[in-house]
């Protein structure tokens, strides 16, 4: 009976808290082990750099993705449906820390963080000398592709970032002919950007890609590019994920770029944090190879080990993420053959049908959902429950009742009940915005059905 087990849980919980407090008090008196402190040291002068063959820029292998800046506390998040909710002080601290530890590449976009990423990044970076960092931003005209609006976006980026030239500038999120023609050819914006490159206000021109392989090859052959931003990690390397319309593997994209000696920038090395917390079977395998390496460090080493990679972008929200990644690349230890083989096995586990996550990288391009759903949080909770073994999909499991409670209570904690999967209207508005091409309404209904089954089973 659930009622009984609940009360047991509470008792256990109180005991646990009490014991934890006692333990904390005790450990305060003990002496610290010196060796573990050394292991956690973050070097300031050992960062691996790559040279951009086009202009000789010495770019840090770890690049800062400015899509996931810290937001002010969750409690206030709900009331802040409008305006910036970024924690500028925390952003400043992260940028200072990154620069102090050798990171010199910052990538943003006018669309990120409800449109406040650029200005927030600009504030933080303008406190440092301009020659200490490279900046990268994008032409993101998904809303209104008119020439006028596109030019406005371009102009605002300079104002927001407080710079008079862009080190790297990208045509944002292209993937098929129709979309590319509408946003960049018909309005003459690509021509405009080419001219800006000649004028020196854009130092390097590239594009970011989510789309079909045929179009990738077309773009590569048709225009002169200085670099390309591609999605690459040990899952996408050779596997084409079902729900992804990218009918081309990361390996193909990388190899085409390497052949033409065009540097590759890497996005989603962690798939929005999913590879930092992969399925526990995968984590076990990683820990058996190196008990002290984080799951994220494996993913970064995978991307960094490829020589034609200029920089690996990571949207680090917390300083601990930043520290872990700096350690991984200070300096980079390229993967050995055995380690690569291990990661290949990890990919098999993660992609196994029973462990398969919803392919969301929490990029927020689908948001805001007009009917209020918190789409990325819904997917994140589902994936995490699956990866952490809190997935009550089998009533025969001895662990079923506990997992059921963890799933339902956790869901209510992370997502306000008025923003959960059961609210999806199926309007399809989100679908066209998803760079991973997830069938969001269909996945919402799947999660809702799963949740409903659990709720009814009192």
């Amino acid at each position, binding site marked *: 009976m659930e*009622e009984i087990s*609940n*009360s047991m*849980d*509470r008792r*256990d*919980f109180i005991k*646990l*808290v009490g014991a*934890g407090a006692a333990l904390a008090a005790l450990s305060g008196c003990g002496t610290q082990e010196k060796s573990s402190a050394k292991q956690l040291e973050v070097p300031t002068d050992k960062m691996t750099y790559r040279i951009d063959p086009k202009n000789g820029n010495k770019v840090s292998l770890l690049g800062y993705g400015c899509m996931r800046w810290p937001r002010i506390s969750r409690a206030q*998040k*709900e009331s802040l*449906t*409008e305006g910036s*909710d970024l924690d500028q002080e925390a952003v400043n601290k992260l940028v200072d820390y990154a620069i102090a530890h050798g990171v010199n590449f910052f990538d943003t976009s*006018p*669309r*990120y*963080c*409800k*449109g406040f990423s650029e200005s927030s990044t600009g504030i933080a970076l303008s406190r440092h000398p301009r020659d200490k960092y490279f900046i990268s931003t994008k032409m993101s005209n*998904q*809303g209104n592709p008119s020439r006028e609006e596109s030019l406005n976006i371009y102009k605002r980026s300079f104002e927001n970032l407080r710079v008079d030239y862009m080190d790297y500038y990208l045509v944002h999120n292209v993937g098929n002919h129709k979309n590319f023609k509408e946003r960049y050819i018909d309005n003459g914006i690509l021509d405009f950007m080419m001219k800006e490159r000649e004028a020196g206000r854009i130092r390097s021109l590239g594009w970011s890609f989510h789309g079909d392989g045929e179009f990738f090859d077309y773009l590569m052959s048709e225009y002169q590019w200085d670099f390309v931003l591609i999605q690459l990690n040990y899952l996408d390397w050779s596997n084409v994920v079902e729900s992804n319309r990218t009918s081309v593997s990361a390996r193909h994209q990388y190899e085409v770029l390497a052949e033409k000696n065009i540097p590759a920038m890497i996005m989603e090395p962690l798939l929005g944090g999913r590879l930092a917390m992969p399925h526990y079977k995968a984590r076990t395998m990683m820990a058996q190879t190196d008990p002290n390496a984080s799951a994220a460090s494996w993913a970064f080493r995978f991307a960094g080990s490829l020589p034609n990679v200029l920089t690996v972008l990571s949207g680090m929200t917390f300083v601990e993420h930043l520290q872990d990644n700096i350690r991984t690349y200070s300096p980079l230890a390229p993967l050995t053959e055995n380690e690569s083989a291990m990661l290949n096995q990890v990919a098999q586990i993660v992609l196994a049908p029973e462990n398969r996550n919803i392919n969301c990288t929490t*990029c*927020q*391009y689908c*948001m*805001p*959902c*007009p*009917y*209020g759903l*918190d789409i990325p949080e819904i997917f994140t909770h589902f994936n995490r429950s699956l990866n952490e073994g809190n997935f009550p999909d089998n009533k025969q499991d001895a662990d079923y009742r*506990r997992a059921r*409670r*963890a799933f339902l*209570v*956790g869901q*209510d*904690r992370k997502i306000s*009940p*008025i*923003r959960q999967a*059961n*609210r*999806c*209207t*199926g*309007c*399809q*508005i989100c679908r066209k915005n998803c760079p991973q091409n997830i069938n969001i309404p269909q996945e919402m*209904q799947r999660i809702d059905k799963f949740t409903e089954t659990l*709720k*009814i*089973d*009192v």
Partner: protein
Amino acid sequence: MIKAFFIIAITLLFLDFTGTVHTYLGWCAKIQLVPAILAANIAVFLGIILITLIFGRIYCLIICPLGILQDIISIKKRFFYRPPRKPLIVLRYALLAAFIPSLFFAFAPLAVLLDPYSAYGRIASQLLGPVYKWANNLFAYFAESAGSYAFYSVDVWLKGIAPLVLAIVTLIAVGISAWKSGRGYCNTICPAGAFLGLLSKFSVIKPRIDKEKCKHCGMCAKNCKAACIDTTRAEIDYLRCITCLKCTKSCPLGAIKYAPPTGADKLSKEGLARRKLLVGTTLLASGFATRAAANQFDGGLAKLEDKKAPVRTKPIAPPGADSYQNFHDRCTSCQLCITVCPNQVLRPGITKAHVSYERGYCRPECVKCSQVCPTGAIHPITTADKSSIQIGTAVWNKELCIITKDKVACDLCARKCPTAAIEMIPFPMIDPYRCIGCGACEHLCPARPYSAIHVEGVETHRVI
């Protein structure tokens, strides 16, 4: 001890929102007098009468939560003031007289105010409930930090101003009267007290003053919570005595004994009266029995307006209520159902509970209100029963629907209907023979603040 048990048990019933406590202590609410009468619970009713006829007003003393509350308030008070010789006897029986018809007809607002159990329920759920939930949320906060799922956070929200004010006023009134005169409420206002007082006059065992030993010192009267001892005549007014037995302990001469009668003549006289009374109550009980049959940027969250309640031409009663009439007639507004409703569907009105779907809908797996209701306003049902009880039917409003308003596809109401009563053609077509009125469609409807589909109650619930 027993007092402490009952007050703690009943308070917990009104605080615990998980329904755990109810499994073990639910009976504490069911043995309350007024709820038992309304629920036509003859066993409990007769049980209370029998106990009163033998031992006196034990019910008022140790079972009624409002009575115990008064004792707690006056626990530090040493002596109570001596009442005037003529208590407010007219008021007392006038209130009882006004109360009785309301048991047979609609349970009137006046009766809701007077019933001691419900008055206590309102105080506990309105005033202590939020404190309890905040404490729980604090634990939930720590549990979340510790990665434990033992506690979960619950909403604390003002369910209505009127019930809150009512609870505060009741507490203040009862508090003052308790501090000044002990069980003043029980002996002046309370209809249950008045009724049981009439019976306790004939109790077999009761405190009796030995007139020969009594020196009229007045110690017993000073300690008496019920202000029922006339020291000059050495007599106890049994209409008011609640058998707390403070007098027997406080008498320095041991002149008061809680005992059966001694004289043979007395016995026969009282016996006759008791028989008459029993016949009367049996008739009364049978009366109850007949009643019982009855794009620009990425990220961020869209702002969501709070839902507003639609105007319902017919109110909704929860499944198990049989009809809105029955629900209305029997609900004493004790708020027990409101406390346990996990979906925030039931909420207090000025005097009666009511159903609305702005914060949740009547979910298929839950029958908690029906299990806890002590008055029979909501009868016990199972989840299987529930899935086929129609408490209302859905009505669609074209103007509000996002299909018309936003020109987007939506089939949420049809998809979420637990009885598959809605079909999209492509607007919702509602099957009135399948719709049970659970409010899933109304609650989940994306149109805000007014849902484009809402539930109208049906007067008599039907099994479909």
